[in-house]
């Protein structure tokens, strides 16, 4: 299930059957004097699991936020599903966002709503995705994918951290996105629950045929899930390749991640 292709530079990765879903070139983003992204490049293809690693504060979350326009980049090309993100108007952006799921670092469940209402919430604005589909059906199906049907009427505060992550995942997949962005899906979880989340991510990918961009600190996680990895250092895509290829690298900056 996990194929590993050794790639040294981004331009080499061109499998003609795979569509280019995200194309980021020379992306720059600063907060005042703090330059976070300084010319970042990244390509995500369909059916790919791309893992991004980088130190805390290196700008991984900022990168994901740029992709869904929660942050606006200062310059650079940012193309998602063939659309130029910075130039879209609000309506076009909302349509695009329906195809790009986002799993937040802290789950970000709406704490004044039950699990059911949390899952129904994104459906409210996307009637085009619903046509004749029964909402209840959709909610239960999404919860079933993460094994939490029994929690449908609970409040977020009644859930454990791992359950919250799974509910957040269910809320993300309910719109059947083509791409899912995961911001540290295993952080704060014990190794067993983390494994469960990995399995879920792989299951979901199989079931809905999504491409994933995954941020993680957990190298075991990366080894199992990554088709390809990008190392974010000093605001650029410092190195790229399969887990095995990067693991064998002699560069001290890369080695630091693999201990």
């Amino acid at each position, binding site marked *: 299930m996990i194929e590993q292709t050794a790639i040294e530079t981004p331009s080499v990765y061109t499998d003609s059957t795979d569509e280019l879903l995200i194309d980021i070139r020379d992306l720059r983003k600063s907060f005042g004097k703090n330059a976070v992204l300084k010319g970042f490049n990244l390509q995500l293809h369909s059916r790919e699991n791309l893992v991004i690693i980088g130190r805390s504060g290196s700008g991984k979350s900022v990168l994901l936020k740029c992709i869904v326009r929660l942050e606006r980049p200062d310059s650079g090309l940012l193309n998602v599903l063939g659309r130029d993100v910075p130039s879209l108007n609000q309506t076009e952006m*909302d*349509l695009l*966002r329906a195809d790009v799921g986002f799993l937040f*670092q*802290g789950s*970000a469940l*709406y*704490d*004044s709503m039950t699990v059911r209402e949390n899952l129904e919430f994104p459906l409210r*604005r996307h009637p085009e995705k619903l046509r004749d589909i029964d909402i209840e059906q959709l909610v239960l199906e999404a919860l079933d994918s993460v094994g939490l049907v029994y929690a449908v009427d609970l409040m977020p505060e009644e859930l454990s951290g791992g359950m919250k992550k799974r509910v957040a995942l269910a809320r993300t997949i309910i719109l059947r996105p083509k791409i899912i962005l995961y911001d540290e899906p295993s952080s704060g979880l014990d190794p067993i629950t983390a494994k469960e989340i990995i399995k879920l991510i792989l299951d979901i990918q199989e079931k809905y045929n999504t491409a994933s961009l995954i941020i993680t600190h957990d190298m075991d996680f990366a080894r199992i899930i990554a088709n390809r990895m990008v190392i974010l250092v000093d605001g650029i895509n410092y190195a790229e390749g399969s887990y095995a290829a990067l693991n064998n690298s002699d560069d001290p900056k890369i080695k630091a991640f693999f201990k």
Partner: protein
Amino acid sequence: MNRVLTFFNETGLITQFAARYFRELVKRPFEFKELLRQCYLLGNKSLFLVVVTGFIMGIVLTLQTRPTMIEFGAEAYMPSMIGIAVVREIGPMITALICAGKIGSGIGAELGSMRVTEQIDAMEVSGINPFKYLVVTRITAMTLMLPLLVIASDTISLFGSFLIENMKGDVSWTLYFSKVFEVLEFGDLIPSIIKSFFFGFAIGLVGCYKGYYSKKGTAGVGKAANSAVVLSSLLLFVFDFVAVLITDIFYEL
């Protein structure tokens, strides 16, 4: 110097926030269901407090002014005086201050924690405009509900005052309220209601502004709630001052 700059900066930002509120208020889609829910929640949350304080205010005011009025032999004017004081000033101001404390801080903390835990971002990425869904509904609900709360508070204050007058001065229900309505005109009621709309708007606006732009971290949420109360109370007095100046011009005419 720095504080003066911060003050003007903050004023500018809040004005911008208010302008955005009006722009988004008239834009589709409308969040009617959420607006109704907020009206119910905000009204329900503060009704009890408003009614209790209103009742006590009525009693206290009557007990304290009564001896002086009797000394002047102006006992008969008690209902009229209390009526005017409560409707024109005390009712709106006390209600608004209580709501600033109770609801302003609540909104600040709620939106602040939603900002900190990325719930606002999550709304945005699921294609729901968080400003419309969270901010527009809350400011509108507060603007609509405060006048109703003020009317409730006025009524209960007068009732409290009547109880004292009835016990101490043997004034009957009909006599008391006919005296009150003898002096109270629409000229008292209307400005006070209009003023209350502005008070409600100020409380909602400041609470939402502070929460929506809350700094990250738990400390940020606490600060948002706290400064929402301080700033909106201050703003209430400024609005009250302006309102009195304006109504005074009308009374002169």
